[in-house]
């Protein structure tokens, strides 16, 4: 995937925190659909990405797959979205052992990505964009990554933690489950501020 130097960081046009997340229903498998409203009541991580199989996307989905237990511990659901079709998603998810749904923003192509401001018109693919939607369906955090860069999962984790802090113990059965005291040790004690 070509690197998009014209679209860096904060953004261009993705929906920002405080906005209500657009409702959508997309196919998760050839015969099943998933609606954002079905996930109401708990936080949802939406990871828009350009394409199944391209190396960075693969790494990004593999990373979120590995971080999934931590997301679940924070009570969150994880969903990947690209313009690839359901059969492509199925093959990709099977090959990579992905444990979260991939939604096909396939017909009309990119319609949901567009609603989130996460569609690349010239390229015809979704942006590499992350959204955390809270239990009320509002966007709590969003981030647009340069298209060739795996954004990592630390921002999502921080956003989910901050949601949990705000909502106290009311976010669900796992809300008061304390995470292990990791990272531990001296936090940045002699970290040198070198660029």
């Amino acid at each position: 995937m070509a690197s998009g130097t014209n679209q860096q960081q904060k953004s261009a046009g993705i929906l920002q925190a405080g906005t209500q997340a657009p409702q959508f229903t997309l196919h998760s498998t050839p015969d099943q659909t998933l609606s954002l409203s079905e996930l109401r009541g708990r936080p949802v991580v939406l990871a828009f990405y350009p394409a199944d199989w391209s190396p960075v996307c693969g790494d990004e989905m593999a990373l979120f797959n590995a971080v999934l237990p931590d997301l679940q511990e924070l009570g969150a659901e994880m969903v990947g979205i690209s313009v690839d079709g359901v059969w492509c998603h199925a093959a990709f998810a099977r090959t990579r052992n992905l444990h979260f749904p991939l939604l096909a923003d396939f017909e009309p192509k990119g319609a949901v990505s567009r609603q989130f401001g996460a569609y690349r018109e010239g390229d015809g693919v979704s942006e590499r964009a992350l959204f955390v939607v809270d239990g009320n369906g509002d966007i709590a955090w969003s981030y647009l990554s340069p298209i060739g860069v795996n954004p990592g999962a630390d921002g999502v984790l921080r956003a989910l933690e901050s949601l949990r802090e705000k909502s106290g113990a009311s976010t669900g059965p796992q809300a008061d489950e304390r995470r292990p005291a990791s990272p531990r040790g001296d936090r940045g004690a002699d970290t040198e501020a070198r660029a």
Partner: protein
Amino acid sequence: MSEGVLTPDVSADRDHIQGSKSAPVTLVEYGDYQCPYCGMAYPIVKSLQHALGKQLRFVFRNFPLSDSHPYAQHAAEAAESAGAQGKFWEMHDALYENQEALEDHDLISYAEQIGIDSDQLAQDLEDGAYKARVREDFRSGVRSGVNGTPTFFVNGRRYDGGWNDPDQFLRALRTVADSA
């Protein structure tokens, strides 16, 4: 997105470290024993250690992506188990030098080759004795902005300069060493 700051910082109490605390450059690698790119990085790190000598301290932390690399988790646990027997680096090297053979029986044979108690290692794997420890490394990596393997940190900051050109990597580390 991430600030790319190593969290937590290197600690002699828990980290596997080669080199002196007084070295001006500390290089931390988050790696996966089954990841081919980490396999490519392995001799590069060795060459950096050779070139920089006492100027470099090297630290390895686990970042297994188990769904992509089914043997990575046990390989990481095996290295930790060997570490508990005082031979982390011997196992680390054996794993990277034999990346194509990382099934449990292979791990046990490497334990024999490096001269540690292989029954203990087999038991540790079975008990998942170091599973939590490996996960702790993984989580610290996610927090620090690791987005793939290998990811390197130089003096606590993520190094995004490209590691696969050894000369460029060495120049970058020399610059840090000279300015320290």
